């Protein structure tokens, strides 16, 4: 096994490894900590290219809201450096190690390559919104940069966004520059008991349509987050005076929907940590997990149409986590539900056989798929970077 792992010590070595693999036509599985190996389709690769050797924060300017780190840097190292200056990662990325049953912690490169964002996505933006600059190696072994280390930059094509969420299929990220922000002084959560999913999304929409700057809005199944019954939960994050004021206003405005509770400090934080990791979904080890993205109002319909008994709605109702039997029939139902709602889906976790057998992402319209194939050929002409990760044969 160790023979098959390439572990370059720096970017130049990594580029040479990729160039050699391209010349030999050797497919590479690109890996950080390997915590999300179970995501999307299984990669059939002769060798693994590990980013663990490329680790460490290379630049941190708290006053400029900018942090750069090598792709293999473990997430806790970044979070600790930020915390020293009271700052945080805006997109609140999940680690999902419990969901995947893997050993943490994830790396920065893995989080960016998968573009996974947590509950703060709806107010603060996704991982992709905060990737200000990248260094990467394309499938020919050439180092390239996009963006930079400033907060506003429209110079040239935005390859930061193209590579974020590309799951390592267009290039190997070696260094990433993120926008960061001061963390909130205080946090509080309004929880409203609701009768069903449809009413729950109404509550979330009312909160998100209020002027109080709700930073996260989720719908927990009964028992989720330690609360009784189905609960619509809305988070405020700001200076303490603001959280107190806005929390009171929001409670008053939402009281008509159902019984209202107020969680502060550690209780609020624990609840959102759980939502971020999709813990309230309660997915059993053998079950498949889907992540569907739709307009928030479509969330309840997706749950009904997919026929999955387990559902967790985040992002105001627009992010639908589903868990159910790992069968092709259930997968087809989820695909159909997402398509009918005009949304997107990911088969997020499933036994390898199912992941290899079905489309784990929605098909693109033919014109776009053709462009995508040409872009892939530009970035990775030998097709050696994570082949088959996102789509069969690509």
């Amino acid at each position, binding site marked *: 096994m160790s023979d098959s792992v390439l572990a370059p010590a720096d970017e130049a070595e990594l580029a040479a490894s990729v160039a050699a693999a391209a010349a030999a036509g050797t497919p590479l599985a690109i890996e950080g900590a390997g915590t999300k190996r179970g995501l999307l389709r299984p990669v059939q690769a002769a060798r693994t290219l590990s980013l663990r050797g490329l680790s460490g924060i290379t630049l941190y*300017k708290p*006053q*400029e809201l900018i942090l750069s780190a090598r792709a293999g840097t473990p997430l806790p190292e970044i979070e600790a450096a930020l915390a020293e*200056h009271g700052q945080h990662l805006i997109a609140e990325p999940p680690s999902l190690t419990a969901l995947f049953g893997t050993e943490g912690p994830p790396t920065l490169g893995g989080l960016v390559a998968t*573009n996974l*964002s947590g509950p703060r*996505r709806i107010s603060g*933006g996704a991982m*992709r*919104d905060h990737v200000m600059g990248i260094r990467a190696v394309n499938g020919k072994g*050439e180092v*390239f940069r*996009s963006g*930079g280390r*400033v*907060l*506003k*930059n*429209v*110079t*040239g*094509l*935005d*390859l930061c*966004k*193209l590579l974020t*969420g590309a799951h390592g299929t267009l290039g190997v990220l070696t260094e990433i520059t993120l926008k960061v*922000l*001061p*963390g909130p*002084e205080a946090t509080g959560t309004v929880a409203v008991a609701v009768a069903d999913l449809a009413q729950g999304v109404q509550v979330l*929409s009312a909160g*998100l*349509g209020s*002027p109080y700057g709700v930073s996260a809005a989720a719908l927990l199944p009964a028992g989720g987050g330690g609360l009784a019954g189905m609960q619509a939960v809305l988070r405020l994050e700001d*200076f303490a*005076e*603001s959280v107190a004021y806005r929390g009171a206003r929001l409670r008053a405005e939402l009281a008509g929907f159902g019984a209202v509770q107020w969680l502060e400090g550690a209780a609020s934080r624990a609840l959102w940590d759980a939502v971020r990791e999709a813990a309230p979904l309660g997915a059993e080890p053998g079950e498949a997990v889907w992540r569907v993205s*739709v*307009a*928030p*109002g*479509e969330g309840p319909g997706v749950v009904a149409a997919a026929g999955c008994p387990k559902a967790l709605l985040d992002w*105001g109702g*627009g*992010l639908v986590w589903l868990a159910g039997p790992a069968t092709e029939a259930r997968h087809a139902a989820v695909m159909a539900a997402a398509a009918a709602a*005009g*949304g*997107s889906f990911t088969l997020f976790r499933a036994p390898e056989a199912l992941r290899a057998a079905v489309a784990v*992402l*929605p098909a*693109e319209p033919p*014109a*776009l798929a053709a462009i*995508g194939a*040409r*872009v892939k*050929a*530009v970035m990775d002409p030998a097709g050696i970077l994570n082949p088959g990760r*996102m789509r069969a044969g690509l």
Partner: protein
Amino acid sequence: MIRLPDPKPEVLARREAILAGLRAILPEGGVISEPLRLKPYETDGLSAYRQPPLAVVLPTSTEEVAAVLRLCQAEGVRVVPRGAGTSLSGGALPLADAVVIGLMRMNRILEVDYANRLAVVEAGVTNLGITNHVSADGFFYAPDPSSQLACMIGGNVGMNSGGAHCLKYGVTANNLLGVKLVTMAGEVVEIGGRHLDAAGYDWLGLITGSEGQLGIVTEVTVRILRSPEGQRAMLAAFRGTEIAGQAVDAIIGSGIIPVALEFMDRPCIHACEAFAHAGYPLDAEAMLIIEVEGSVAEQDMLLGKLKEICNRFDPISLKVAQTAEESLAIWKGRKGAFGAVGRISPDYLCMDGTIPTGELPFVLKRIGEMSAQYGLQVANVFHAGDGNLHPLIMFDANDPASFHKAESFGADILKLCVEVGGCLTGEHGVGVEKRDLMGVQFTEAELAQQRAIKSAFDPAWLLNPAKVFPLDGNPALQRAA
């Protein structure tokens, strides 16, 4: 001077046939070809450059755009998309053999969905038109470029436009859900939709800011946000740019992210004050306009903290607006900054580099030295929170030597921005203006890779081909006469 590619003789020779083909596609009045009526389209916000196009078409639907592109693709005709023509980088500058596709007749707001907090609009809807349409219901569209009264959302997508409030709300790319894109081959593709983070490659992110080189956006689904309870500004003036820079650092370091944090230097303060009589302190070297949001009590709390921070830097004056009217008065000068500079100089070039904010004092000092060397005045206005610098270089367009000096001065400023770790353009785009400086920021291999990605969308390089990438190495010119 910026070189434009030679027109394709075979296209010029077939002009009448191409015009007839376009007229067959578009409704009455949708094709403009008379020299006098082409005049308004020969330039954009970078008015030093002018070039009448072969023709202008004004489609009214996505299907018409697709049909025009199919014809142009078949005839090998270059196309230049155009919104309101406010680009400061020459993004809409025509070519002599190109058809300009003006999107201004596609100006309908198709849908507003408050429960899902989105609006679906055609590309020719103005930026402010979106906010005006939803403001009575308490919502707004966040990116607010200074041209927002005129500029159109299609152009905003093309350039990934920013604005004064993007420190808090982000730029165009951060506020989109989907677009309808017509490829050069005339195929209509829906990218994204009404949901966040579509799985698969982030085409939406790649297309935003691609300066009309990958396809033509005809419809846009934007996020709309509920407006805060209120907002209020304060003004803080300091004895030196370095001190003002330290105050900015201290504000960000305190954990406050103001919704806007604008910086003006002495020449800019003077120009704005003479124009707007906003009560700006004329003895200051630098001035900040800081805006916060929330309820009145929250505004008081934040402005109190900000005042305390600014007081640590020995300000010449601190003025906290007590009312919405006083807040508008503070903004009045800043909002009129470009007009104010236009009043004291016949012409100006508005530059748009971004720098790491810590480099501000050094960069302003160097710009001052260059101003003396070139013998041209410059006023600086700056989105201080995000490092986006807008030096306004004053010159006289009637004097070619003055214009060339201004261009060289601008290029030197942008090179300086890259040298200190920044970039050529923060929000105006590369266009033609900064095209020939791309080699300062990117290596030849990096440019080749970006060009190849454009080729994946537009193999014949017909879409806005003279922009962004230096002409040497531009595949569009390999077959030029």
